[in-house]
């Protein structure tokens, strides 16, 4: 019996996926477990497998299309079966317009799919803007000239409202957009814009970051607490370990210390859930890893009960996998608190945006030499700034301060870490 293949939900945060490539073509025989297509989610590129035997009768969502979770993308069935009843038009979408069709409970006859992480490949070419659609049910129309002009000027056609028939984007629309752009920037005598603008198509990851962090910064009432930590002793210990070729980083120690401090201050290991606060019994630390086109926070689970050695090894593996885009969904979801360290980039102090629904994120600055006044004497010491961003709906200033004080005490007395 024929069944629908729908865009699978491959991570908690996934709302849509882009079909990079169909591995099976219409008419190909398909067996359970065989790869149907490659899908770019908000976090990674995964292979989508078939969970049913038959023939790939109809590809509904073509390569390049971005499809909402739960929407039909193909039909698998017997070679001669009538599948017309199963085929429904698919409305690819760029942004995530409301409401998601059939996102939850799956309709009967849906062929489930399971995600498999794909080895890093070069299959990440973004589909051309024209191939995508601009909104629900509205296909993007443009004259060939407008397409070319937009490509040359780096204008995203989807951002324009065409004035031609059926909303076709035409030359004058591009010219209007260019005029508007050059109106905002002083033009040079040659008619060239003063600033050369290069527009870069958003990757799925960048779109996710943009969407989620707006979800954080705007509705989550952040406040910030900063402490200056004396790092002399930890630095000494760290250097000593390094000299012994111990493969740990300062960040591993901070992860361990923060996890221990969170264990003692569970009010910071929590999240806001509308009418109640969730306090977590286990401490999972998300560690921000910068990628070329975004960032991702792989999670070190139960960091409070792991040794620094274990944390160091795990953090290193996860970071490598993140950079190669080989993280599986369970490896980057479910953190209860996050740490972002820009110290290695020379940043002394910064405040990070909370990764919802977590209640806090710790921004770690560089360890630096600084004048320290002790007993009326100035000496050279090592200092590090920590800034804690807190969701004020979950915790208050004093609670954040107490957590920070515990963390500071641990870092200043390395023997207390653990």
């Amino acid at each position, binding site marked *: 019996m024929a069944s629908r293949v729908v865009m699978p939900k491959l991570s908690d945060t996934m709302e849509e996926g882009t079909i990079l490539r169909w591995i099976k073509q219409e008419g190909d025989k398909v067996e359970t477990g065989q790869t149907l297509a490659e899908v770019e989610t908000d976090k990674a590129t995964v292979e989508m497998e078939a969970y049913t035997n038959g023939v790939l009768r109809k590809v509904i969502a073509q390569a390049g299309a971005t499809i909402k979770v739960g929407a039909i993308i193909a039909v698998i069935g017997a070679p001669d079966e009538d599948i017309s009843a199963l085929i429904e038009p698919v409305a690819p979408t760029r942004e995530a317009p409301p409401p998601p069709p059939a996102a939850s409970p799956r309709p009967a006859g849906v062929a489930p799919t399971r995600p498999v992480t794909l080895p890093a490949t070069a299959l990440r070419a973004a589909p051309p803007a024209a191939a995508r659609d601009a909104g629900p049910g509205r296909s993007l129309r443009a004259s*060939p000239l407008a397409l070319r002009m937009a490509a040359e000027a780096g204008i995203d056609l989807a951002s324009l409202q065409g004035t031609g028939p059926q909303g076709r984007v035409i030359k*004058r629309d591009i010219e209007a957009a260019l005029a508007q752009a050059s109106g905002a920037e002083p033009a040079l005598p040659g008619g060239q814009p003063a600033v050369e603008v290069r527009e870069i198509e958003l990757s799925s990851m960048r779109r996710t970051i943009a969407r989620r962090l707006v979800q954080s910064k705007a509705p989550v009432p952040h406040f910030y607490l900063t402490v200056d930590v004396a790092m002399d002793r930890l630095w000494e210990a760290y250097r000593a370990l390094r000299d012994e070729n111990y493969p740990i980083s300062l960040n591993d120690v901070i992860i361990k210390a923060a996890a221990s401090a969170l264990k003692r201050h569970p009010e910071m290991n929590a999240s806001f859930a509308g009418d109640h606060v969730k306090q977590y019994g286990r401490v999972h630390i998300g560690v921000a890893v910068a990628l070329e086109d975004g960032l991702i926070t792989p999670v070190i689970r139960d960091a409070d009960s792991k040794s620094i050695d274990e944390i160091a090894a795990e953090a290193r593996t996860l970071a490598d996998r993140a950079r190669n885009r080989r993280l599986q969904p369970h490896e980057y979801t479910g953190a209860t608190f996050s740490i972002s360290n820009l110290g290695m980039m020379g940043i002394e102090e910064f405040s990070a945006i909370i990764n919802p629904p977590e209640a806090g994120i710790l921004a770690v600055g560089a360890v630096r030499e600084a004048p320290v006044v002790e007993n009326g004497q100035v000496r050279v010491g090592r200092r590090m700034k920590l800034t804690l961003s807190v969701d004020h709906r979950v915790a208050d200033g004093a609670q954040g301060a107490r957590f920070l004080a515990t963390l500071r005490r641990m870092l200043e007395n390395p023997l207390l870490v653990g």
Partner: protein
Amino acid sequence: MPLITYRDALTQALREEMQRDPNVFLMGEEVGVYQGAYKVSRGLLQEFGERRVIDTPITEEGFAGVGVGSAMVGLRPIIEMMTWNFSMLAMDQIINSAAKMLYMSGGQFKIPMVVRGPGGAAHQLAAQHSQSLEGWFAHVPGLKVVAPSTPYDAKGLLKSAIRDDDPVIFFEGETLYGSKGEVPEGEYTVPLGVADVKRAGTDVTIIAWSKMVSIALKAAEALAAEGIACEVIDPRTLRPLDEEPLVASVQKTNRCVIVEEGWEYSGIGAQLAYVIHRDAFGDLDAPVTRVTGADVPMPYAKNLEHMAMPSPARVVQAVKEVLYIE
């Protein structure tokens, strides 16, 4: 430069070529004693005698066949169709013999023949006598098809056609015979296969030939008053087609309207539109639009005849459509 009629420009071309080459002769219905149904051969019988200006019975297939045969043995016949509507009777000679003889004889026989006469609608000549059949002939490999729009082009192109070693189908606009234009006194030719820009402009390309050039120019004039600069291009030769200037113009203007007196279906304009799409697709801001004759046998009633033909107003409308003004 003298201002003469299209008719007289054609007569000049015939006379000059008959003076230049004794192998050139004119044959057709009423070309001699009656001086031509449209007076294109006025004075030629008197000047060149009845061996070179030959009146024929009403036998289109017959005298077209005589033309092919005489061309095969080295003469250069000019066959006048009283109107192109009658050429249907000569189609077998034109298509099966004239067009294919060079190929089928392995290059042994050239057919330096011109078949000429008036085409298109005139004034209330009704369905059987108001047809633009360029598309029929341009369809056939082996034929060259020419359709001049001005006296200057008519003379220069006819001289080139007579000197050409291939069969040339030469469409004269039936209502153009009395139109006047500047024609130089001396000898000149206009090469086959070369288009001409009749009006320069930057906003839209209008392609038209024969009588439709004047329609296009009237539309361009009206549009100029609205600040729209039309470029009007006359391919002059419909086969072989001078594609490059047409494409270059559309690449400049990004829009194209083709005006054709004949029917839309399988018309010359379809080929032109294909060429534009093939070579200038990335430069198009709107689909190529065609203004053509109505898809009906030509009505006899004057008002309906007008409605069935391209008009400056319809061209203006089409230009505004490709400019997305209306």
